[in-house]
């Protein structure tokens, strides 16, 4: 009965979400609070039903219920417990169910948090969110039904893609989808602002934390995706400018722009139109991302199977784009700025420049991603756009952004005086220049490396200088060191949370730069007893061994690694042979280090174990990327803490 029960739940959820959306919208327009309350109940019901649906699907996986097609396609009797759980969202239909569930969770949280404090906007936001949920429920009932019955019931299933049988796959989709769906909240409130014409700061202050949370999860999702790619795929990289990576990166870029530009509206009542455009754009890009992965329009390693679902998504994308942008045009007259730009040398203008660069980066990524399509439409020629294009265009933009990251938070609002500039930037600029010279003297010739290191030090020292001065001021008031620092962080949590996130981004930058500029690799075939040499290390091939594991067969090579000291460690890269898959899956062996990672991938081998081909890499500073992610996490937590009013 599982298939029928599941489908029934989803149909009721669809009806309830549709009703709730209409009721909330009507209630908001007519001011009838009974309708709004009724919509709230519907939203709670939708959450309960979506939870029931996802639990039911998980139950079907745990009990090997192969009468559900989706279960049969994504698990076998041999699939371990945890991968039967992750298989719930491992393929198309399940990913939609996870998505819808998260949206219903966000809707519930919005109701709990804002039903008292944002009475004007919140019914509209609830209507918009339930509308989006209704769309996903429609997709699940018509186009990608997770509970479709499979008949006759097979004895065993096909199994989850082995590449997805990794712990990264537990967390990567969850973080990414929490980010994607999270941007629905600011979008929904923005729609409320447009619908009511109250386009002041209300929607911005209401959604500030939501936007930060969504941005954070999106960042985390991207980082975990990079980590998964790095330690599972075995090509030694973490980012490939694949269309679907781009699809997740674009809303990150516009979302980052939004986080900054709303500050100008809060402070100077400017950029109303721009902020609404950005939030709409960000939401549209999250939809575009789902469209891209599920429509089969662009070839990608992330592509799910195709079907009518692409047309559904394009229809919804068009509906949202045209509705939202038309609303924007209708409200044009109230979206004028109340403030004006006083000087080019001011915080406003630096933030504006930051926005221009971020949106330009998003645009180039978008352009590169759809260019193959454009080329085929216009010239009839199939082309692919690779990493060199994206790197070439984006690296200068990102380096400029890092520079602005140092300037923006400290330059004065309205008009910066020479004194303000000297006070805040004399030392950091000096340190940055010294850093560049030191790099040059030490023989670093990659301009990318020199510039990133100099800029990183510049930005880090602006933060340090600011924190030092603020602490010193408190010490002069008679506080002791640690209470002074802690109090500063908590009282000005928004400011210092932001700084901490900036520092995290700097750490990530160093990691990206180091791996880009200084990693080395080699590929070679070794006979038993022979060694490969790379980056001061020696890798000696000692032999092969085979072993049957739970649901695959493993062939591992044994390599003794030394650097001056003999027998530093033993590494065992392997190949995993899954019975249902043609090609074996590489099992990367790696040793992470602060300075460098050792990274080994086993290639072809002789069956008697006499020789093996290996790829060896010494990847520099990659760990800094993951450490940067932790710093970003701390900063985000600090930034979303409840506000504390300064004493007095």
């Amino acid at each position, binding site marked *: 009965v599982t298939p029928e029960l599941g489908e029934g739940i989803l149909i009721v959820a669809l009806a309830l979400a549709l009703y709730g959306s209409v009721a909330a919208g009507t209630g908001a327009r007519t001011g009838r609070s009974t309708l709004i309350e009724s919509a709230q109940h519907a939203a709670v019901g939708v959450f309960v039903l979506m939870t029931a649906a996802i639990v039911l699907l998980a139950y079907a996986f745990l009990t090997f219920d192969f009468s559900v097609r989706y279960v049969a396609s994504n698990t076998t009797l041999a699939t371990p417990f945890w991968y039967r759980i992750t298989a719930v969202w491992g393929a198309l239909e399940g990913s939609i169910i996870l998505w819808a569930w998260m949206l219903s969770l966000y809707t519930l949280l919005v109701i709990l948090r804002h039903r008292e404090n944002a009475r004007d906007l919140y019914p509209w936001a609830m209507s918009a969110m339930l509308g989006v949920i209704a769309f996903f429920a429609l997709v699940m009932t018509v186009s990608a039904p997770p509970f479709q019955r499979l008949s006759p019931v097979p004895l065993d299933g096909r199994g989850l893609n082995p590449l997805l049988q990794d712990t990264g796959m537990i967390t990567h989709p969850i973080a990414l989808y929490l980010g994607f769906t999270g941007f629905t909240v600011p979008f929904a409130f923005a729609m409320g602002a447009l619908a009511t014409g109250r386009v002041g700061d209300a929607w911005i202050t209401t959604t500030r934390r939501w936007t930060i949370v969504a941005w954070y999860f999106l960042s985390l999702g991207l980082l975990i995706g990079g980590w998964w790619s790095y330690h599972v795929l075995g090509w030694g990289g973490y980012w490939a400018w694949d269309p679907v990576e781009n699809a997740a990166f674009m809303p990150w870029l516009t979302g980052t722009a939004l986080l900054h530009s709303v500050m100008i509206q809060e402070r100077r009542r400017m950029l109303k139109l721009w902020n609404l455009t950005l939030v709409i754009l960000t939401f549209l890009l999250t939809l575009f991302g789902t469209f891209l992965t599920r429509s089969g329009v662009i070839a990608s390693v992330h592509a799910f199977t195709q079907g009518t679902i692409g047309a559904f998504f394009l229809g919804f994308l*068009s509906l949202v784009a045209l509705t939202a942008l038309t609303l924007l045009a209708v409200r044009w007259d109230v979206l004028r700025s109340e403030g004006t730009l006083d000087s080019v040398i001011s915080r406003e203008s630096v933030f504006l420049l930051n926005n221009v660069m971020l949106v330009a980066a998003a645009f180039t990524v978008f352009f590169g991603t759809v260019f193959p399509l454009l080329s085929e439409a216009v010239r009839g020629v199939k082309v692919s756009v690779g990493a060199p294009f994206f790197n070439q265009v984006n690296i200068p933009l990102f380096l400029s952004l890092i520079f602005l990251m140092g300037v923006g938070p400290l330059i004065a609002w309205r008009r910066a005086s020479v004194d303000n500039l000297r006070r805040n930037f004399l030392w950091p600029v000096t340190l940055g220049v010294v850093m560049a010279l030191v790099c040059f003297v030490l023989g670093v010739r990659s301009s990318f490396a020199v510039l990133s290191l100099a800029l990183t030090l510049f930005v880090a020292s602006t933060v340090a200088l600011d924190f030092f001065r603020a602490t010193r001021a408190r010490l002069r008031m008679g506080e002791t060191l640690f209470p002074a620092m802690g109090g500063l962080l908590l009282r000005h949590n928004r400011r210092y949370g932001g700084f901490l996130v900036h520092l995290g981004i700097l750490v990530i930058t160093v990691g990206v730069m180091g791996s880009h500029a200084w990693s080395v690799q080699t590929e070679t075939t070794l006979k038993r007893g022979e060694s490969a040499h790379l980056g001061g290390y020696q890798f000696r091939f000692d032999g092969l061994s085979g072993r049957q594991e739970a649901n695959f067969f493993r062939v591992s090579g044994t390599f003794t690694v030394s650097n001056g000291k003999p027998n530093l460690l033993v590494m065992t890269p392997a190949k995993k042979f899954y019975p249902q898959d043609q090609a074996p899956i590489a099992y990367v062996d790696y040793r992470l280090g602060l300075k460098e990672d050792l990274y080994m991938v086993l290639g072809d081998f002789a069956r008697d174990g006499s020789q093996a081909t290996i790829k060896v890499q010494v990847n520099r500073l990659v760990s800094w990327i993951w450490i940067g992610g932790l710093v970003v996490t701390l900063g985000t937590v600090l930034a979303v803490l409840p506000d504390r009013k300064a004493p007095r």
Partner: protein
Amino acid sequence: MTRILRWAIPLSALPVLALLAYGFRVDPREIKSPLVGRPASPFTLATFDGPPLSLEAQRGKVVVVNFWASWCYPSCYEEAPALERAWRAYRDRGVQIIGVDIQDTVDAGQKFIQQFGLTFPNVRDVGGKVSVDYGVYGVPETFFVDRRGRIRAKHVGSLTDEVFRGHIEKLLKEAT
């Protein structure tokens, strides 16, 4: 001026949406193989029934070389009935279908053939040499070879009746 400008915002979305809609008309899996236009690499492989089958011997016929495997679910399972239908419809019109089972065991392959009642010849690519020659990187993949022994088209993924008919009718019209 601003009156026009304001409506430019929603209108600007239209070309992008149109481009994405166009995306449905193209198939990114229709990959141009460098082998298209080149002579099909010759092979002689043992059939499941025993006697070897050679590509060379089919010269003069339009040949369809279909790479499959019993573990390739669902794509190969979807296309097997379509292939059998095509074989019955075209076998007397000078079309030869050859199934090449790759990376598979004899038993599983045999069971697959019986399950779908396949009547066209199927060979086993033991060691995978032929799939390497044809640049196969996933199953199913299908190559259409003309009467002169040249690869004229490659299809990645499940074959449908329409795709099959489209390629075959074109090649059948050509003279030897």
